[in-house]
């Protein structure tokens, strides 16, 4: 009896696999790599790629395996034989890795004229910015009426074990935060800052999801996230309970870029896509789906963004310095935090 069931089970398995094995359908006209949440059902992906398909009358294949760090690593490993034409979703804290490995085919889009010059970090136009935002500490105004107003205030003893952050070793907001502390305290002072911050960190998570989940489930009142996070809660949960503060030292910007890969099989379409990326059809979808500010704003921001404060003071870290020093910083950070 069991054998026949087993046979049926195996047969069923094989069948399932055959069904899901795609009949090698039409070859796409453009292949895009991006990170998983960009192409989730509620992310910008389904909207903007569909609009581009309508715009170009072509088909786009989107592959989104893992977070931005993973997708970038995969693209670098594939560089001798690239599968994708466009990589979308590399931020300024990670971009140095892509430059080190020389994966881009430079392209200067005429539509860059819609983009503020401060976002155009790459003079060689290997990558083109499509949105930007700021990493920020989001707090629960119900359990923490007087939130810290600066990086320094985060080290206040009254906040013992009340903060959760992401690890710079495994997460992109985590890495940006490490860079933020280096920009604010300098290479001589940041480790000392981390030593003072340490008692207030309940834990350091592998990625944004675990940290933010702990925050919204009430485990901690402060979490490292994005300055736009409160807008999500206002838009979908109709609550202003979660807020963020602009820190006195200045905020640290995350700019997200896309670019054409060297050896792309469809370079013409790829350039068309980069141009499209800076038009209203793409940019207008960004605020409510990717929770970032559009790089080339064509319409006013949605109403829920009224809760998002506008930073006036920025801190930045030079790309060349990140490229040269990042591995050392991470190593020093790991050892400091392990003590």
């Amino acid at each position, binding site marked *: 009896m069991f*054998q026949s069931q087993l046979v049926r089970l195996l047969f069923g398995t094989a069948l399932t696999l055959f069904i899901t094995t795609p009949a090698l359908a039409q070859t796409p006209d453009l292949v895009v790599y991006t990170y998983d949440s960009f192409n989730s059902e509620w992310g910008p992906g389904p909207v903007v790629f569909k609009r581009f398909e309508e715009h170009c009358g072509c088909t786009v294949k989107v592959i989104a*395996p893992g977070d931005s760090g993973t997708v970038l*690593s995969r693209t670098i490993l594939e560089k001798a034989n690239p599968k994708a034409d466009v990589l979308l979703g590399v931020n300024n804290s990670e971009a140095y890795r892509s430059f080190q490995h020389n994966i881009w085919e430079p392209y200067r889009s005429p539509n860059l004229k819609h983009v503020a010059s401060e976002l155009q970090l790459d003079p060689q136009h290997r990558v083109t910015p499509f949105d930007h935002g700021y990493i920020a500490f989001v707090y629960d105004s119900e359990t923490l009426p007087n939130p810290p107003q600066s990086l320094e205030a985060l080290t206040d003893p009254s906040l013992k074990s009340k903060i959760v952050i992401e690890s710079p070793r495994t997460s992109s907001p985590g890495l940006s935060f490490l860079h933020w502390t280096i920009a604010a305290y300098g290479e001589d002072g940041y480790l000392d800052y981390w030593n003072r911050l340490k008692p207030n960190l309940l834990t350091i998570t592998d990625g944004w999801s675990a940290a933010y989940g702990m925050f919204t*489930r009430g485990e901690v009142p402060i979490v490292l996230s994005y300055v736009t996070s409160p807008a999500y809660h206002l838009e979908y949960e109709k609550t202003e309970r979660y807020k963020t503060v602009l820190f006195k030292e200045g905020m640290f910007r995350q700019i997200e870029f896309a670019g054409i890969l060297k050896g792309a099989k469809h370079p013409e379409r790829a350039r068309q896509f980069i141009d499209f990326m800076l038009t209203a059809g793409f940019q207008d979808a960004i605020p409510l789906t990717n929770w970032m500010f559009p790089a080339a704003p064509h319409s006013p921001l949605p109403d829920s963004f009224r809760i998002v404060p506008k930073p006036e003071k920025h801190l930045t870290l030079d790309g060349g310095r990140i490229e040269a020093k990042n591995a050392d910083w991470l190593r020093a950070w790991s050892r400091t935090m392990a003590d």
Partner: protein
Amino acid sequence: MTPERWAVWGLGGLAVSAFIIGFYGPILHFLAGHDPLNPGTPALSWGILREVFSDSWILGILGFSLFQAFLSAVLSILVALPGAWVLAHYDFPGRRWFEHLTFLPFLLPTILVVLAMVLFFGNRGWLNQALGWLGFPQIQFLYSLSGILIAHVFYNVPLALKLISASWTRLSGQYEQAAQMLGANAWRRFRTLLLPLLLSSITSSFAAIFLLCLNSFAILLVLGGGPKHTTLEVLIYQLARIELDIPRAASLSLLQSVLAITLLSLLLQLRPPAPKQRPAVLRNLGAELQGKRPEAWFALAVLLALTTFALGPLLAVLVDSVRVFRHGQWHFSFQAYLDLFGFRGNTRFLGSLQNSFGIALGGAALAMTLGCGTLLLILNSSKRTRPLLEGAFLLPVALSTVVFGIAWFHLYQRILDGQVALVWVVVAMHGLLVCPYWLRIMLPAAEAVPRQWLQVSRLLGHTTGTFLRRVLLPWLRPSLATAFFFAFTLSLGELNAILMIADDTVQTLPLEIYSALGGYRFARASAIGVVLLLASLFLLVLLNLGSQSSLLNPSKKRS
């Protein structure tokens, strides 16, 4: 050659070739070659290993990785032992459901285990709220070594419980009665009699849990309270995925796995005497409770404790999936489920569900096929070659999945790309990755088959086929079902290895969960977790229906 020889050489040869082609080949080829990103530098150099050995910080991490895996495995077994005792001695209403439900923690993807632990054991979790409500002070379990251990025990007790109870149930009660008559007290009976008899299943679960915990990642980082409890796996991930320092990642991974396998091989050399076996005789728990036997009350307490421990955090996930936060308050809602099943618009979820189950069933089927070969080889090996074989078949899971994935990435790029549908490549990877666990689960059961059965069967004039069908399969059925199910589960949750080659045709549930979480959809992630649990529970019930062994449950007919 006799048919048995043919089976050993055929299936064994198949398994060995699969391990060489799919694991040793790609890894060695990769390590012997050049750094893919710096042609000209060899991938593996003594310099790196020397550097590692002279760096006390890395050695400290290596030590802690092994230490926490050791502790987690020991604790999981200690927690499972009383449960295994109950299952080996008592029959009670809902016994089968108890076995099924205590399986569930093993099914939950780690990111959800982390959130479940926070919801249940966290500073503001259910447990602490209940304590506060009752007027007790709060306790902080998480964000330290104890947090790591609690989560690892929660996760791995099902495995130990299943393995140990299976072999305990088969043990003849005669031994214990004899020892009792000779005046040995309970502790002495346990230490000198039972423990050696259960040794095979204990060491097997130890090895499997040790290796699972060695590669644990999210649990360690989040519940361990940050970098003070970092493991080598985190460093390997950072090197391989973020810094793309693949030679260093591969060297560290190789070093750790060789060390781990050496330690385990020593342990696996402990061979128990082959105990006399007989069908289980289960006592009726209800009747003994009425008879006010203290043992029975202890059994009841164990059952309740294990059920609470296994189901509490899962219940927290369930509750989390049926609520939404609106206007500053939590509301009850099935929204997440309605979205999942596409009652409100399009959904990719059903496709991912189908992909996941297809891949996991395929992976488990492959693991079983290869597993049969490895099992036959090990059972037919000599005393000297056996530890070597066991180690060789365990190594794939001791190696970091990130490194395994990168080695396969190269194999895929050079040879397989465009030749084979990606889904088959993923099935092959999963099959190889979960085969060692399948083997660990089957080995104690297979070893317990009394050798004389084959001879008796021959004397009775049975063919090998009849022997397999009438004797061996009925005996092994429950273990086969368990092993298949664990292999299925592990394949269902596997994510790391395939990220480097995945495309849109292999969108699976773990990927769905991560992208839901990444987009603020926490209730949806929990709901996917619940669907995953229910669907797997359904499969488990089916498998168990198929494996109802007449040998193991004669008590049902008797009572």
